[in-house]
């Protein structure tokens, strides 16, 4: 293999990792755009999604039908879970200082992790995630696995669907209105509570899909698996400009590529540190992120 071929190969690896980050980052960015809350529990919602997928795959088997069912189960499970979290933990604190909601989000994260750890059929030990047998497909000089193909295609489809929902439906319009000005939107007859709940659900459905994809690509799951991808996705959301949906997609892909390139060409140990360094650099150079808008505070 020559240099270019390796480079393109890494690019595809990065794209596949990056699209998972992007899927998770969308949930962060949508929630932040609407309620200005860093939803730390998001990575753990993803973890719950991965477990839902795991149980379905164990029961049905890793056929294409089983995979579809696993995705559906994970998405439904995460949607319901986030509905419950939003109703019980975040909604009562809607008007509280932001620090309180943030700490509640951290507490929800810890609860999700520890509930999974305590549940008898989950337990704290890591498990092997059942995946399809890997097949290598090659086009010209590059080759990629069927799993990478699924990851990239499925994330792209989900993002297109999300784009449609946000930009071309009535609910999407309401979401944009609430994120622009919560008070004014509520005066215009938009049910703010409903829209916020829907935003949480959409974000978590994407995280559920992201969870199954992540577990398929890195086939080991445990109750704290959501922490690192959650953090990375959050970095991706900030990188793209938190609150901006195309920004999150872009940030995710950039981060994924940067990370695989670091692994391939610099040092595999510092790949994690690189993403945080990117975060700090972007905050220094352009704190609003690549696609974020600058806001001015008026008295």
């Amino acid at each position, binding site marked *: 293999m020559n240099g270019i071929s390796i480079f393109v190969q890494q690019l595809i690896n990065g794209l596949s990792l990056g699209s998972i980050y992007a899927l998770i980052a969308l949930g962060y960015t949508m929630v932040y755009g609407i309620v200005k809350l*860093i939803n730390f529990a998001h990575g753990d919602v993803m973890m719950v999604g991965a477990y839902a997928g795991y149980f379905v795959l164990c029961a049905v088997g890793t056929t294409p039908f089983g995979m579809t069912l696993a995705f559906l189960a994970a998405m439904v499970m995460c949607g319901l879970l986030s509905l419950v979290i939003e109703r019980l*933990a975040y909604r*009562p*604190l809607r008007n*509280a*200082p*932001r*620090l*309180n909601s*943030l*700490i*509640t989000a*951290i*507490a*929800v*994260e*810890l*609860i999700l992790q*520890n*509930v999974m*750890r*305590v549940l008898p059929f989950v337990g*704290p030990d890591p498990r092997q995630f059942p995946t399809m047998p890997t097949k290598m497909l090659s086009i010209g000089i590059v080759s990629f696995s069927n799993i990478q193909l699924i990851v990239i295609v499925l994330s792209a489809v989900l993002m297109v669907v999300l784009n449609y929902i946000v930009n071309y439906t009535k609910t999407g319009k309401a979401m944009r209105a609430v994120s622009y000005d919560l008070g004014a939107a509520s005066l215009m007859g938009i049910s703010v509570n409903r829209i916020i709940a829907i935003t949480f659900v959409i974000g978590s459905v994407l995280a559920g899909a992201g969870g199954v994809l992540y577990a398929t690509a890195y086939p080991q799951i445990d109750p704290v698996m959501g*922490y690192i991808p959650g*953090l990375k996705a*959050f*970095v991706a959301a*900030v990188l793209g400009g938190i609150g901006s949906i195309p920004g999150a997609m872009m940030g995710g892909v950039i981060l994924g590529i940067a990370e695989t390139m670091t692994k391939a060409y610099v040092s595999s*140990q*510092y790949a*994690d*540190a690189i993403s*945080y*360094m990117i*975060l*700090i650099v972007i*905050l*220094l150079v352009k*704190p609003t992120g690549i696609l974020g808008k600058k806001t001015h*505070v008026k*008295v």
Partner: protein
Amino acid sequence: MKNKFYRNTAILGAIAFVAVFVPTLLIKLDVINAYTAQIITLGGINAIMALSVNIVCGITGQLSLGQAGFEAIGAYSVILLTQNLGIPLPVSMVLAALIAAFFGFLIGFPTLKLEGDYLAIVTLAFGEIIRVVLVNQKGITGGPNGKQFPTILSTDFVWGPALSYLVIVGVLVAIIILLQNFIRSTYGRAILAVREDEIAANSNGVSVFRYKMVGFVVASFVGGIGGALYAPFIGFIKPDLASFNNSINDLIFVVLGGMGSVTGSVLAAFVLTYLQEFLRFLQNYRLLFYPVILILVMLFRPQGLLGMKELSFIRSIELVQHIKRVRAMQREKAGAKQANETEGAAEK
């Protein structure tokens, strides 16, 4: 006024003296066993970390999610300075805290100019970077297995527990005293003004960025002290010291005790450290118990148990005196009334 000043200083001095020396004596005399002593002393370190978080979150009004990163820097620095450079332990503790403060300066300088949650994000990333670097610089830090640091505080069974308590709680008391003075100084008042309203403070000529920096660097200094005491006391450290979970633990003390309340966060640190040990019989459920309390506090008492109030020893003593005085007056009155009645009865 003046005699009250001396009286109040004497009261606080006496309380500080009792808090530091009486338990030390009890530990030395084996009235408090080594296990309990260990927990109480750990509570002291947690209280120092809680103060560090409190200076950022409660007093300066910024959110830091990486305070444990400074603890780790302090802990590793003290080991490296003592073992590799042969600097005596007390000196290297001060140097370690200064190193942590320097890192605080580096992190704060670019980020405190920004508004909103950015400091939270950067400190979070900072803690993770520190952890990754500590894991990977195996030659210097010992990698994921951590580093041993046998000192008199951790290995000596005769003097160790009592001495640890003496040193750590002594430092804690010193920090509390300095912090109380700091809050009431020009700097402290400016920092509080920034916390209350940045725009108003700015228009009154308070340099918002500068005072946020002062608050943040002081906090990282205190965090460094926490780490510098932790390493010789435990005698063993791991990169996990810098982890997000550890930072959150420190934050929980402050949130439960009351943001901005020094006594509240110190008290919460001691109580929760003890509670963690006490709840060990619950095993895995123990970890579940903690966040549930956190959510309940956020829902029903969002300002924390003490809010911004302080437990004041002087005021409580004054209260007791006041109650006594009122009681005495009531008794006098009642006595006089009784005397009147008996007189009246005698006249009849």
